[in-house]
């Protein structure tokens, strides 16, 4: 089996919000078609790490490189155009726009109009095209946000707590979608649902108080019990 190529490399990342330091010398690597998960308690710095990679938070020091090219200093929209799409935790879609318009926004930015791919993952969106996104359920919003992000064949998806507050049936559906997506795209997921984390992750980083305290790399040996001590 060949070793997948290194896609994203972050090292020595330090982030502070004013006086409060949030990340301390964080280093993380993601290879192509890999699912990497970050676990940790609230306030551990997981979401900040994703925002930092996506260009929304500027680190005080450190490097972030995609395929060897630095992403530091690029505005968030330029990072997105390089194929790194961030899906935030709050599930806030553009509520005044219809589902179709939300997807159009994703399509137009990337000039990728193959919606059939999105509907292949989330057939339910096909029946909701004319509905205002503000009238969707939490699960439907998450589908829309992921569907919008995968237009344009991103190389890396950064997904923040995708299953938070969702019904088990939707979580099961998302699990299959993540596995499918990882055939073509690398994923970095921040998640608290440990059975899901253990079922899909190739590698797990555990964060505590802004530091990576362990990296679990042996997929076969990862169990929810191993992860529990970090959440």
């Amino acid at each position, binding site marked *: 089996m060949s070793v997948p190529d290194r896609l994203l490399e972050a090292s020595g990342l330090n982030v502070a919000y004013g006086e409060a330091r949030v990340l301390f010398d964080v280093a993380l690597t993601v290879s192509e078609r890999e699912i990497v998960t970050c676990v940790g308690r609230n306030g551990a710095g997981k979401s900040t790490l994703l925002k930092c990679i996506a260009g*929304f938070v500027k680190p005080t020091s450190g490097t972030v490189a995609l395929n060897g090219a630095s992403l530091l200093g690029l505005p*968030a929209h330029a990072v997105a155009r390089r194929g790194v*799409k961030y899906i935030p935790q709050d599930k806030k879609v553009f509520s005044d*726009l219809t589902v179709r318009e939300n997807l159009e*926004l994703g399509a137009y930015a990337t000039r990728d109009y193959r919606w059939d791919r999105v509907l292949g993952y989330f057939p339910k969106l096909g029946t909701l095209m004319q509905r205002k996104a503000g009238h969707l359920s939490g699960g439907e919003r998450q589908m829309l946000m992921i569907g919008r992000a995968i237009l344009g064949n991103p190389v890396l998806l950064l997904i923040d707590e995708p299953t938070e507050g969702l019904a088990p049936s939707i979580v099961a559906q998302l699990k299959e979608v993540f596995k499918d997506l990882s055939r073509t795209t690398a994923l970095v997921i921040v998640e608290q649902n440990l059975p899901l984390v253990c079922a899909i992750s190739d590698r797990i980083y555990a964060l505590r108080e802004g530091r990576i305290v362990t990296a679990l790399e042996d997929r076969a040996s990862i169990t929810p019990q191993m992860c529990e001590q970090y959440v």
Partner: protein
Amino acid sequence: MTAALRWWGGPIVAFSLLALMRLVLPLAFVIEVLIFSIYTIGCSFLLGRVGFISFGQPAYLAIGAYGTGFYLYYFGANPLIGLAVGVAAGAVAAGIVGPLFVRLRSDYFALVNLALAVIVFYLMQKVLADITKGDNGLWFLTNIASTPLIDIARPEGFFFFALLAGLAVWALYKYIDGSVFGACCLAVKANDDKLRFLGYSSFSIRLLAFVIANTTTALAGAMYAVYLGFVSPEITSPARAADPVVVTILGGTGSLYGPIVGTLAYTGMKDAISKLVGNWELFIGFLLVFIMLAGEKGIWGTLQPLMQNALTRARARWRRDR
């Protein structure tokens, strides 16, 4: 065919009604409504679509008017070229200040635009008085040459021109509303961070929206200049800075019919009340406060659902009777 009819049906009915108003109302009033509607539609777009409130619209109105005025006073006689110069002046001015202004939050944006209106007012009244003729203004009514097809140098011809210009501007904004750019504008208003996740530069979207809106405002200014044959600093008076915002809110923010309905109501009220009482501004002020408290969606925003319901009921009754 049906889709085209649906797209054009509303505006054609609206502008036909405006044209018919000419039969019962003074020409000057109808032309004022048409030009003021064009003036307001940019403000309505900025407020309803992009989430920017601007108290500086008189600045762009004046830049359009003086662009046209300078051409017709100093350089030439063709009013169509004058209009083009005014519109170009507005687009250039918006393109210069836009990159600075659209970075600001909505409240600061409102104030910095008001400051621009004050600057333009004093530039035209004092600093550039040698070429603007200060408070006396530029008079060029007799310089304006006739134009082929529709002679916009004459009020009747100008009325048809204003009608067509209004319809064209309305169609442009209707097209923008249904486009991806229109969706981006709404998305900027809702949450520009989320738009950046998708790979859009929210700055570029705001800037383009700002330039489009203020170029439209400059068109209204240029039209005033050609219609009146006169421009003075009064056009950019900071005291009138709130007018387009008031008309936008009065008509219904974000709706394409709002500026037309708001202008009709505002201009009509001003016209009627000023004939009846002395301190008419005071009455207008109280009336506006009452209208806005009574229906925060504005006149069109309140009427439109009622009309829609009535239409749906009438259709259902018609189908049942058949």
